[in-house]
């Protein structure tokens, strides 16, 4: 596995100061802490738990091999998400589509549980999420679920914050649209999201 594909120019390891054991341990523990988030992000991107785990493994290998490029004090999560995302777009995207075609998305396979809080059925939501354009889905996940800031998401995707905001907005709108096709009864009888979008602020839930 060469990590060189993410950094084309082969720098001589100028600062080949080997990490201390303590630093290596900290870094490793940081990686371990982030694994659940990496899996969730990878699954959201690829639509498959199996691909997600391959993707996470590649990400961990690259992260380990490039650990000297991580600046302590900055967000390890954002750094890892950048690696994972680049890996996904360069190597996995196509595979993801193939897997989804042949096996269906994880949305249909994964057991759903413990989402009492949620108004929308998790399986339905995942199907809708999988239908979003990638560029919208990834940012919606980043800012809506992972705890990353708009700024971090902008850095990770290499676009302006304004772009992130508008993608998030479009993603939400699109999701609402997709979900109203299914059942969003929980949102209220005459409050399908399509209608809701046109009637913001109409507080009159006329009863």
């Amino acid at each position: 596995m060469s990590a060189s594909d993410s950094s084309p120019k082969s720098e001589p390891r100028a600062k080949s100061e080997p990490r201390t054991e303590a630093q290596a341990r900290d870094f490793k523990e940081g990686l371990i802490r982030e694994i659940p988030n990496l899996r969730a992000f990878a699954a959201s991107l690829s639509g498959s738990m199996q691909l997600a785990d391959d993707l996470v493994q590649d990400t961990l290998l690259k992260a380990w091999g490039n650990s000297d490029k991580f600046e302590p004090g900055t967000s390890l999560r954002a750094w890892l998400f950048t690696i994972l995302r680049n890996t996904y777009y360069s190597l996995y995207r196509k595979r993801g589509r193939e897997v989804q075609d042949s096996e269906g998305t994880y949305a249909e396979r994964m057991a759903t549980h413990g989402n009492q809080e949620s108004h929308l059925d998790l399986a339905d939501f995942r199907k809708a999420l999988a239908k979003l354009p990638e560029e919208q889905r990834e940012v919606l996940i980043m800012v809506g679920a992972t705890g990353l800031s708009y700024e971090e998401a902008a850095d990770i995707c290499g676009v302006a914050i304004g772009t992130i905001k508008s993608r998030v907005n479009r993603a939400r709108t699109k999701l609402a649209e997709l979900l109203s096709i299914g059942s969003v009864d929980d949102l209220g009888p005459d409050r399908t999201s399509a209608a809701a979008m046109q009637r913001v602020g109409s507080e009159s839930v006329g009863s």
Partner: protein
Amino acid sequence: MSRLDTAMSDPGEGFDDDFELVLDPKVQESIGRSLKAHYDDIVNAPVPDKFLVLLAQLEATEQRAAGASTDECK
């Protein structure tokens, strides 16, 4: 399409007002909750051992490589 009345609902949520379309806050909330439910469901799933094994191997390899100072621990 119409710029929805920012007058009625104060845009206190920190959203930029250059959005063309504003979702009903209830719809937005619902989407937000579902998003978290989807994500947290995976975050809370057990992590396969293979990742910990992989990291342990990487660490061991590195320790051996840097070995000079430290004794080979196993």
